[in-house]
Each structure stands twice: as structure tokens, then as C-alpha cells.
């Protein structure tokens, strides 16, 4: 039994608890604890990924109870990839927040760690109800983080975010009730096996359970018409938090991929809701692109870019082929890191512009204008999908594997709208500057964190083949639910 | 079961039920809040008391040993119920709730 599998959950969990124990509010100590944990997650995640890349699916039986009776963690290529991605995103986001933002409210570091715990748990768990629990962990932590700091807009957005997710949690429970009520199990693999044997009314209920899960995961992923909460929530969140949130929508995408890959690739419910997801994904893509164009703040624009990436990803996923899923995963990695970096960048810009913040109106140039402009240019190219950065590779991969004229039109057209929007934004912020603003230097650690995340774009382009090979391999494994089921139900029991 | 015990249990149940109901009837039909306050705090305590007595008898007989756990319910209720009534009375006086005109004495200003 490899205890390393549970480490991505336990490391931040214990870090969070220890942070809670530290009552004297010694910020340096808290920062250190948080950063050490975030740093430690990276080698752990790399190690896990390397284990998974070998091709075996590893199962960790909590409490030594065999599936489907106990809860299991499952490490396959897909979940390992997601955990690795999370760790890579988390460290720069935390570095950025640790400069000063963490002091703007209580318990920041503990919440951050427990958020990581929730995210990693959601990626690793092989049990549907446990997925619900980890969803709640990551949600409640994200509520706290989204509201970290102050300001009416943040609170208002926070209320929207919280209430919608509470409704979402209720729906998830209904879905879980149906899952258990029809198949008598909660283990994902077991569910996948038993759902294939259903018929009659039970099948009908299981179908609704699946569709409700799509709704719930779609809410997390921010699919149309469920994304409306996202722009305000993300745009108003503290930068480091917004950057971390770039992975949150991906949890939704992952959950859909996971459940779909296990239970709905074949059998009586094959392709469940795929058409609807496809349509919604395309609409999301389009509307988010329009949102990018119409955004009036940089943070809002980046938030819409996040939504746009979700549309792009979900369309790729709902196309259903392993190849498209492989391409989708590459794009997922790219968009998570780049959007995270852009959130940080938006904050750097806002900081340099005083009261104007990240509003897209002409004003004094931010401190370190040319450097920021260069970063913005880089990030914009990447996120729009222009060469030679990772966005281009990702889009080409998706276009190649999803040969649908409609998708091409939306993806390329959306890219064009984003191009127009981002070029306007960049022009307004960096070119139309009315004289140089405050001559303050850029904060180096903040800049470093931003650069770290944005450097994903060139890195994913240069080493694109290795990454794409990895994501394609993950998708290939994903497309063979039998392997997963065998590992969970066959092996350890 | 012994007829006598059964009779006693049944009687206790009925007594409890009747007093619970009477208390609630008081709550429902008495004309002002202060009067309504008497219904539940009195009758309900005996209502619960009756059922608890029934339960004591029943289980003690059943287990052939004294089963007094339920006494604790009564104990706790006797400790807490007057507080509820007291606090509600204070609330009513604070709000200067209407009382029946022929009420003698006056409530205190809060």
C-alpha cells in the first residue's frame, strides 16, 4: 500500500490544521507553513505522476476496507495529472498572495491549504459520496477565500457564489440518492458496473442521476447557463485566490470526465447527455468570448477567459473520442496555468494604476509598464491561441481531434473575439497611458510568481510533445474504464 | 403481561395524552397570551409525566428490573420548562401584549 497516494490530501490538511493551531497570528510563520506545504506538494505530485505514468492504476483503500465497501483513492494517469497541475498552480498563487494579501483577513493560509486538500481529494477519490464531501471541502474553503479581503462587490459576488453552490450541493445529494437508490453502491467503479445492468424505472432514475450530476459539475465548471456567478466572483477575489480558482472550474470538467469515462462510455446510458453538453459547451464558448469582448475590467476579462476555456474543454470532452479528450487535457493544463498567471498579472496592473485598478479605461501607466506589457502580450497570445505558445498547440490539437465545422467556427471565431477584446485592453492599459504612473518598482516576488505561471505557455509549447503524449496517454487510459474497474474492484479486495 | 401492569400503563398513557391535549387546548382557545401561557407549562408537564410513568412501568415490567432512565426526561423538563415560560412571560410584558381587561394587577415594565 503506497501511502504517497493520500499525501496530496494529508499534507495540506495537516498544514491547515497546524495553521489553525497557531493562534498568535505570526504571519511569517504562517507563510512559511503554507509555502512549505505547497512546495512539498510538488515533488509528491511529480512522484505520483511518475508512478501513474507507468501504466498501473493504484488504489488506496482507506481504513483497509475493500471497495466497494470502503472509500478508495484511485491514482490513474488522469488523476495524477490533475494533482500535479494543482500543485504547480498552487505554489505561485501562494507566493503571490503571501506578499501582503494574506494579511487582509483572517485565516488565509489555513483556508488556502484546506482548499488544496479539497481539490486534491476531489481528483483522487474513487467514491461518489466522498467526491461530494471533497466538493464541499473545496467549496467551503473557496467561500472563505473568495471573500478574503473586503468590499461590497466581493461580498455580493460571494453571496451569489455561495447560494448557487448550496443549491448545487443539494442537487448533488439528490443525484447521490438516486445513485444509491438504484445501484446500491457509491463506489464509482462499482456504480459503473452496476449501472450497466439496470433497466426499467431504475434505469430511468439512474439517467436522471447522471444528468443531475452533469448539472452540478457543470455549475462548478461554469457551463452556460451556469457560469453567471463566475466573472464577478473571480474578478473580485484576491489575486492569488483567483489564480488558484483557475483550477476550480477544472474540477467540474474533471468530474464529468471521470464519471462519464467510467459509467457512460458504453452500456445502456452510453453518451449520456453528451449532445446537451456539446451544445452548452459551444454556447459557453461563444458567450464567454462575447464576455471577453465586453469586459470592462481586466480581471473580469480573465474570468471570462476562464469560462471560455471551459467551453472549449467541455466541447472537446463531449466529442467523446479518446483523442479529443487527450487534446482537451493538454488545453486544460495550458488554460489553467495561463489564466492563473493572467489573474496575477491583472492584479499587478491594477496595483500600478492606483484608484483606477484594473478598469479598462485610459489612465496612468502602471509601474514597470514595458515588463507588464510584455507579459500581457505573452499571456494574451497564449490564451487566445495564437502561435507560438501553448494555446496554439492546444487549439490545433483540439481542431484536429474534433472535426466539427461548428466547433471550428466557434473556437476560431471565439479566438477572434478574444483577440479583439484583448488587443483593445492591452492598447488601453499600456499604450493609451496618460503619462507614467507612480514610479514604484514592481514587487519582485509577485512578478516572479506571475512569470512562473505565464512561463507555462512557452514551456508547454517547447515541451509540447511530451505533455501531449502524457495527456493522450491519460485519455487512452480514461477511455478504457475496464482498467479502472479492474484495479478498484478486482485487485485489492 | 400482567393485567394490572397493563392497566396501569394504559391509564398512565391516557392520563398523559389527555393532559397533553388539555394543555394544548388551553393554548389554542384561551383569550390572551398570559392565559395561554398556563396551558402548556402545566398540562404538558403532566402530559409528558404521564407517558414517562407509563414508560417506566412498562419497561420495568418488561425487563423485570427498575428502569428509571425516563425520570431524567422529567427531571430535565422540570428544570427547563419554567425557564421557557418565564422568558416568554418577560417577552410578552416587554411587548406589552394585550391582556384580558378584567385582569387584576399589572405586568411590570421591562
Amino acid at each position, binding site marked *: *500500500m503506497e*501511502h504517497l497516494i493520500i499525501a496530496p490530501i*494529508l499534507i495540506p*490538511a495537516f498544514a*491547515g490544521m497546524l495553521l*489553525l*493551531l497557531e493562534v498568535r497570528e505570526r504571519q511569517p510563520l504562517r507563510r512559511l507553513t503554507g509555502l512549505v506545504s505547497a512546495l512539498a506538494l510538488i515533488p509528491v505530485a511529480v512522484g505520483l505522476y511518475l508512478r501513474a505514468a507507468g501504466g498501473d492504476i493504484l488504489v*488506496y483503500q482507506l481504513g483497509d476496507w475493500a471497495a466497494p*465497501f*470502503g472509500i478508495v483513492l484511485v491514482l490513474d494517469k488522469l488523476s495524477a495529472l490533475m494533482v500535479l497541475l494543482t500543485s504547480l498552480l498552487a505554489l505561485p498563487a501562494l507566493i503571490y498572495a503571501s506578499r501582503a494579501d494574506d494579511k487582509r483577513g483572517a*485565516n*488565509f493560509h*489555513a*483556508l488556502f491549504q484546506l482548499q488544496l486538500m479539497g481539490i486534491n481529494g476531489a481528483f483522487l477519490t474513487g467514491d461518489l459520496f466522498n467526491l461530494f*464531501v471533497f466538493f464541499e*471541502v473545496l467549496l*467551503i474553503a473557496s*467561500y*472563505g477565500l473568495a471573500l478574503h479581503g473586503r468590499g461590497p462587490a466581493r461580498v455580493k459576488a460571494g453571496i*451569489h457564489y455561495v447560494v*448557487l453552490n448550496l443549491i448545487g450541493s443539494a442537487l448533488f445529494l*439528490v443525484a447521490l440518492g*438516486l445513485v444509491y437508490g438504484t445501484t*446500491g453502491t457509491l463506489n464509482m467503479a*462499482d456504480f459503473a458496473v452496476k449501472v450497466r445492468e439496470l433497466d426499467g*424505472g*431504475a434505469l*430511468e*432514475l439512474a*439517467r*436522471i442521476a447522471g444528468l*443531475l450530476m452533469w*448539472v452540478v459539475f457543470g*455549475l462548478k465548471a461554469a457551463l452556460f*447557463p*451556469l457560469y453567471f456567478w463566475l466573472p*464577478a466572483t473571480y474578478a473580485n477575489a484576491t489575486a492569488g485566490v483567483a489564480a488558484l480558482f483557475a483550477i476550480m472550474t477544472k474540477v467540474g470538467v474533471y468530474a464529468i470526465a471521470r464519471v462519464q469515462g467510467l459509467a457512460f462510455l458504453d452500456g445502456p446510458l452510453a453518451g449520456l447527455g453528451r449532445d446537451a453538453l456539446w451544445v452548452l459547451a459551444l454556447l459557453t464558448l461563444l*458567450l464567454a468570448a*462575447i464576455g471577453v469582448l*465586453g*469586459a470592462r475590467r481586466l480581471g473580469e476579462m480573465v474570468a471570462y477567459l476562464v469560462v471560455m476555456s471551459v467551453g472549449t474543454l467541455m466541447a472537446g470532452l463531449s466529442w467523446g473520442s479518446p483523442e479529443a479528450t487527450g487534446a482537451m487535457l493538454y488545453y486544460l493544463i495550458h488554460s489553467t496555468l495561463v489564466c492563473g498567471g493572467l489573474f496575477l498579472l491583472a492584479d499587478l496592473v491594477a496595483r500600478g494604476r492606483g484608484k483606477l485598478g484594473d478598469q479598462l479605461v485610459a489612465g496612468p501607466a502602471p509601474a514597470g509598464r514595458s515588463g507588464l506589457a510584455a507579459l500581457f502580450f505573452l499571456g494574451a497570445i497564449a490564451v487566445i491561441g495564437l502561435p*507560438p505558445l501553448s494555446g496554439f*498547440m492546444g487549439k*490545433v490539437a483540439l*481542431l*484536429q481531434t474534433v472535426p466539427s465545422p461548428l466547433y471550428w467556427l466557434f473556437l476560431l471565431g471565439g*479566438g477572434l473575439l478574444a483577440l*479583439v477584446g484583448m488587443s483593445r485592453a492591452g*492598447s488601453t492599459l499600456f*499604450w493609451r497611458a496618460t503619462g507614467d504612473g507612480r514610479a514604484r518598482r514592481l514587487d519582485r516576488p509577485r512578478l516572479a510568481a506571475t512569470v512562473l505561471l505565464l512561463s507555462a505557455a512557452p514551456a508547454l509549447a517547447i515541451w*509540447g*510533445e511530451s505533455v501531449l503524449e502524457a495527456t*493522450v496517454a491519460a485519455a487512452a487510459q480514461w477511455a478504457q474504464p475496464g482498467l479502472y474497474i479492474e484495479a478498484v474492484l478486482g485487485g485489492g479486495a | 403481561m400482567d393485567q394490572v401492569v397493563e392497566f396501569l400503563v394504559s391509564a398512565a398513557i391516557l392520563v398523559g395524552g389527555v393532559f397533553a391535549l388539555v394543555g394544548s387546548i388551553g393554548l389554542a382557545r384561551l383569550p390572551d397570551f398570559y392565559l395561554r401561557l398556563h396551558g402548556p407549562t402545566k398540562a404538558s408537564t403532566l402530559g409528558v409525566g404521564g407517558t414517562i410513568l407509563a414508560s417506566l412501568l412498562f419497561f420495568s415490567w418488561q425487563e423485570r428490573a427498575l428502569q428509571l432512565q425516563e425520570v431524567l426526561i422529567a427531571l430535565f423538563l422540570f*428544570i427547563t420548562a419554567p*425557564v421557557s415560560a418565564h*422568558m416568554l412571560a*418577560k417577552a410578552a410584558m416587554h*411587548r*406589552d401584549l394585550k391582556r384580558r381587561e378584567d385582569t387584576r394587577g399589572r405586568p411590570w415594565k*421591562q
Partner: protein
Amino acid sequence: MNLAILVLLPFLGAALPPLAERLRAPRTALALSAALMPALALALLIGPAGQVFEGRTVQDALSWMPSLGLTLAFRLDGLALLFALLVLGIGLLVILYARYYLSANEKAGRFYAFLLLFMGAMLGVVTSDNLLLLVLFWELTSLSSFLLIGFWSHQSAARKGARMALTVTGMGGLALLAGVLLIGQVVGSYSLDQALASGDLIRASRLYPLILVLVLLGIFTKSAQFPFHFWLPHAMAAPTPVSAYLHSATMVKAGVFLLARFYPMLAGTDLWFDLVTLAGMATLLWGAAAALFQHDLKGLLAYSTISHLGLITLLFGLNTELAAVAAVFHIINHATFKASLFMAAGIIDHETGTRDMRRINGLWKYMPYTAVLAMVASAAMAGVPLLNGFLSKEMFFAETLQSSRLGAMSWVLPLGATLGGVFSVAYSARFIHDVFFNGEPVNLPKFPPHEPPRYMKVPVEILVALCVAVGVLPAITVSGLLAVAGSATLGGELPEYHLSIWHGFNVPLLMSVVALVGGVAVYSLRRWLYTQYDRLPAINANLIFEGRVQALARAATALGNTLRNGSLQSYAAWLLALVALVLLVHLSPAAIDGTRGLLPLDGVALLAGAMLVVAALITAVLHRHRMTAIMSVSVVGLVVSLTFVRLSAPDLALTQLSVEVVTVLLLMLAMYFLPVRTRMESGVLRVSRDLLLSVVIGGGVGLMAFAMMTSDFQTISGYFLDNAKPGGGGTNVVNVILVDFRGFDTFGEITVLGIAAMGIYALLRDLDLLSARSDSVGRPWARDAHPLVLVTISRPLLPLALLISVYIFLRGHNLPGGGFIAGLITSVALLLQYVASGVEWVHRRMPGDYHPVVAVGLLLAGVTGLGSWFFGHPFLTSTFDHVHWPLVGEFELASAMLFDTGVFLTVVGATLLMLANLGKLSLLDDKKGGA
């Protein structure tokens, strides 16, 4: 020799000038640092060039993303060589020119960097042997030209021009990408080599029309073909070296380069002829005519460029080999004379301070040397014999006569060509006459103008010399290059043709003569034409485009705001409507097909159920009376608890009951700061919508519940019933599941509780809230804050409640109870102390920060889980044993108890952290308000 390195050199070179600038290098050194890499590249090109002239194609490939079909594959054939020479050669001249053009205070380092980026991209476009790589470089040219056009970013025109160029060419680039992907789909490879060899396959493909249209979209936008030409004049806001480079020799030529490159793949069909010829002809005429009317020197050149690009395009469209060769020839010629003209225009701008031809007159007097150069180049542009422009234009005229595709309408082509020639001569004449003669300068910002610095003229001299050399001695100067480029374009043998000045008296010559005479005639009529032109409504593409974009952005914002209207309820309605839709579409009464026997319904259950229904409805109907609603919700909670009692779930009943109490406390704490009533706000329509959603979703869930309850199913739960005792050491199966089988869920659950408490603490910290100074009827609050009876009773209740907590906790593993319920009881008892005696009183008696309690609780649970590692078991593996003590007897010790203690502490800590801090709010308020 590695072609990849050749392409890489300018990119590497882009780093040098900024570095030099940072080192405060003088301007010349800066220019030299910029020139270094291109010069090196040009030198390195000599070797492979020799091979190309021997008729070979030099190829070179590195792997990049083979799974995408994207390889770093390069090829150097005649066509690529031609363009590489143009890109590098003219590039070097432009760097030299820019050394003098840019003023001292401009960021020359950055400028050169952008220029070199562009150069590298352009080099990449022309040498790519991989279609995706080609697109990649293609887009890079758009991006780097965006930076170059916007170089003077303080100018609005520059910013807008840059964005327009990027938008239009970017759109084309996306279309090209789509086209290329389709080609790849048809050919099965993105290798240019293979694609060029698969022309027949592509043309026969069902996708051919789509491919053609997409590729042409890319080409036309880049080469400013009608109707995508409008961005080019506005790109003239760029510094002149940029125009000289991008808009004469390179970027706009990328489009026609691609026409040449894809010629073997896509040309030869009627569709090709129709689309390409038509666009070319329209562009030729429109550009030529518009050029005449520009008063801006660079504007004239820009439209002239458009026109010449149209000419080249038209030639490619004609589908004859000779026309293609002519097109390639004209590419060379146009590059040389147009680059020199731009530079000359830049010199004039530089020396006079304006580009307005209405003010610039009679410069012959002031800068005769420059005038000569410019006049020669203009003559070449006009197609005057003995200059290079004449030769290719002659070939063009000849080719227009050969086409028969239009049947009876075939005369249109030569006519159009001649007409284009006429205007071309006219605007060239204007460039010469209006600038260098035509009286005296008017109000020049810089006066008097004089010749520019010596070396600023060198690039122009070189280019003009080339114009003359090619024009006079074509066979010696250009024929070799043209031959290899032409054959590479055609992808095979060259047709028979002769580059000579004199072909005898023939129709093309006649057309040339007509063009020259007609052009001069048109120019002499210019005053009348200008007045006519001024009567036409002015069209400013920049304004229109910017207006469109802004309107689009506004519409986008409006649409965004309509959907994302800031109303939580509309978001929630979308979510719930989606659920309702799922239920309406997929749920049918047929789902109730179970055969499970029903339980009898008794009166008590019926009445209790009715009570719940009534209370829930009261809550919904009377929700605006908030206190009433809170109480009716409590009734619902009570009935739910009773339901759990009735339906064999004692643990749930206990949990529900204790949670209920804490929730009411919480709500009452909150109510102090919230309005007592909700105003009536929803309209009938809104209420009906919400009712509909409620009925559908409520009904649907109820129906599903009934369907589930009435059908049998296979479940794993038998395992838990069987193993709770032997495996988990407890008889309360629910508890064993919670602390053992699914202890990980509980671990997560208490984490949620802990996080919620932390988040609440953070939310409450320095929250400014106005509390009500009087109750809902306006009466001041009662005096008695701590009623005696309440205070006194709360005291013994604390130890009693703790006793009960211990009892509930200890029995939990075997009977209903457990850490969670025990924790809640303890919390309530402690909260009662707060309610009865106040925060300060309580905090004098016990520590007020509950963070450590939560932490210790979570850690205890976590560490218990970790403990199993030391025994080689997974996280949270439990163990238990029966211990026998004298007197006490036998009792069980289970690690799960330790875990449950963690749960207990977390619950106590979290609940108190939440509620006590909420209670403390009013203290802050009191201090602030001094009430």
C-alpha cells in the same frame, strides 16, 4: 547547413538591440547590433543558395510536436530563396535607414527588436516546409507587425491602425489555420512537400472549395486584397521604416507568397480563377484609383501597394504558368521600387515635417539628389521602359490577353489592366510632379528642407540602382533568380519566356503606351477629379472599423449584462430551470415500476406529515414575517426528526434535533442585525415562474422518491451490517460506518465544519453592522440583560449537559449517539452560558478563542488516522480490543473512539467559534455606538 538556425538567427538577434540599449550603446552601435544577425543569416544563405541555383531543394527538419504533425521542417527552394533574399536584404537596408530615421529619444532598441522578430517570422513563413509551422510563422508576422505599427503608441492612429491590422490579418490567419488543417486532413500530412505533390488529390477533394476559400481568406487579408484592403492605409501610422519593410517587401507579400507557394496545390481550377482574378482585378483598380486621391504621401504609396498586390494576385489567378512567372517577377520589382519610395517618402517627411502633398511642393530645389532617386523609383512604379516595373507590367498586359475563361467577356481583363496602368501612371506622376515641382512649399513645419544624412540615402540608392539594373539588364541581373523562383512556384518546368526590354510592336506595348498617355492625361485633369472626389462622402475606414468594434463591444457588454444581470435569483432560476428541464424530459410516471410492498400508513404518520406540509407551506407563504418563518421552519425540523424516529434512524433524529437548536440560535443572532420583515418585491409573473419551477422540481423529486421507495434494489449495505461488529467493533452500524467504514467522509465533514468556522471568523472580523436600537415595534430594549432565573438555571445545566455528552459519546459506537451529537450538546450548553450571562462573563471563565479547539480536534482525528501507518495499514484503519479491568469489568477500547473524540472537539470548537463570535459582534457595535 542548418536552415533552422538561419530562421532562428533574427529571433536571437532580437535580444541584442535592447541589450545594447540597456548598455547605453550609441545609435550606430545599436543599429549594428541589430544588423549583426541578419547579416550573418544573409551570409549563411549563400551556401544553400548555390544548391538552389543548381536546381536542388534544400531541406532540413527537426522534430517538435509530431503528434500534432507540427515539425520544425524548413525548405529552401527558388521561391523561398527569393523571398529570403528580399526579407534579409531589404531588412538590412531598412535597419540602416532606421538608424537615421529614428530620433534620438526613441526607443530604438525596442524598435529593432520588433523588426527582427518580424524578420524572423517572415523568414519562417517563406522557408517553412510544414504547413502548421507556416501558419505559426504567419501569425507571428501579424503579431510582430502589430507591435511595429503600434510603435508610436502615444498616437491614437498608431494604436488603432495596429489593432485593425491585427484584427483583420488575425482573422485571416485563423481561416488559414482552418484551411491548412483541412489540407492536412485531405493529404494526411502537414508536410508542405507532400501537400505540393498532392495537388490533384486536393483539387478533387470534396473539401476543396472550403479549403480554397479559407486559404484565400488568409491570403487576401494579409495582402490587403479587396474587400480586406482597408487596414493597410491605416497601418501607415507606423514609422516609415516599418512601412518600407512590411508594406512593400515583406508582410503584405506574405499573402502573395502563399499564392505562389500553394499554386501547385490549389491553382488550376475555375473556382481559383474566379476568386483570385476577381479579387485581384478589384483590388488593382480600386487601389490605383484611390491612390491618386491621397494627399498623404504614404497614403498614396499604401494604395499603390494595394493596387500592385491586386496586380500580382490577378496574375496568379490567371492559371497560366507564364502569368505565375510574371507575378513572381513583379513581386521582386514591386519590392524594390516600393521600398525605395517609402524610404524616400520617409526622408521627405523627416526633412519637411509633413507628408501632406498639398504643402510639399518644389522640393527639387531643396533636395535634388533625393528627388532624382524618388523620381526614378516612381517611374519604375509607373512602368516606364528601361526600369524594372516596365518589364513585369508588360508581361502582365500580355497575360491578360491570353485568358479565355471569361469567354465573350474576356476583353474585360486587358481593359481593366490598362485602366489600372492608367491610374498607376497618374499617381506616379503625381508623386513626382506634386512633390518635387508644382511651385513652392506651403507652410512646412521644417523649412527649408535639405538633403538627409549621407547614409540615410544609401538604402534608397541601392534599391533604385537595382530598379535600373533589372530594367536595363534583366537577363544578367534577375533572370537566374526568377527562373529558380518561378520553377519553384510552378513546381515543375518553366514555360518559355524572354526577359528583354524590347519585344517588338505588340498589343502589350500598345497598352503600355495607352497607360502612359492616359495616365498623364488623367493627372492633368487632377483638379477637376479632386473636386469630384471631395463631393463623395468621406469614408474613414478607421472610424468605421473602430465604430464597429466599439459597437460590438458595447453589444457584448449589454448581452453580458442581460445574462449576468447581478440577480442571484435569475442565476438560480437558470440552474433550477435546467433541473426542471431534465425532470420534464426524462422523468415519466413509468419510472414507478417497482413491486416492493408498501408500508401501511397510520394516522399519526399522516397527521405528522400533514403538519410538516402545513409548516413548510406557512414558511413559504409567510416568509416575509421572518420570525414566524423561523418558527415554522423549526416545526418542519421537528417533524423531520420525528420522521427519523419513526423510520428507524435514531442517530439522525438526535443529530437533527441538536442541529436544530444551534441553527435557531444562529438565526436569532443574525436577526438582531437583519430587517424583521421582507418587503413585497416579486411581481405576479415572477411568482408564477417560481411556482412553476417549485412544482416541477418538488413534484419531480417526490416522484423519484416514490419510484425509489417502491422498487427493490441490490445494495452493499449487508456488508456493513455483517462486519460492523466483527470488523469495526461496534453494534451501531451507522456510527461504525461514520468512524470506520467511511471514516474518511467524516474526516472531510469535520474539516468542512472547521473551515466554515474559520471562514465565519474571518467574515466577522471587523464587520461593521448597525444593530437595531429598538425592537420591531419601536420600543426600546428591555433593561434586564441577564434574567435571574435563566442565569441560575443555566449553571447546573452545564455539568448535566456535559454528563449527557459523555454518555452520548461513549455509547455512540454501540447505540445511537457519538461524537458529533455529544459535541453539539456540549456546544449548546456552553452557548446557553453565553445567552444567559454574556460574552464577557463567560470569557472570564474560559478561553474565548476556539481556533485551537478546532485544530486539536481535527489533528486528533487526523493523527488517529495516521497512526495506522505505523502498523502498516492505510490511513484511518481502525483497531479495537476488549479490556478487562478488575471491578470495572470488561469494556472496549477502539481507535475509532479517539477519532470520534476528534469529531467531538471539532464540533464544539467550530460551533462555538461560529456562534460566540457572532454574539461578540454586538460588543463591537456597543463600543462603537456607545449605546
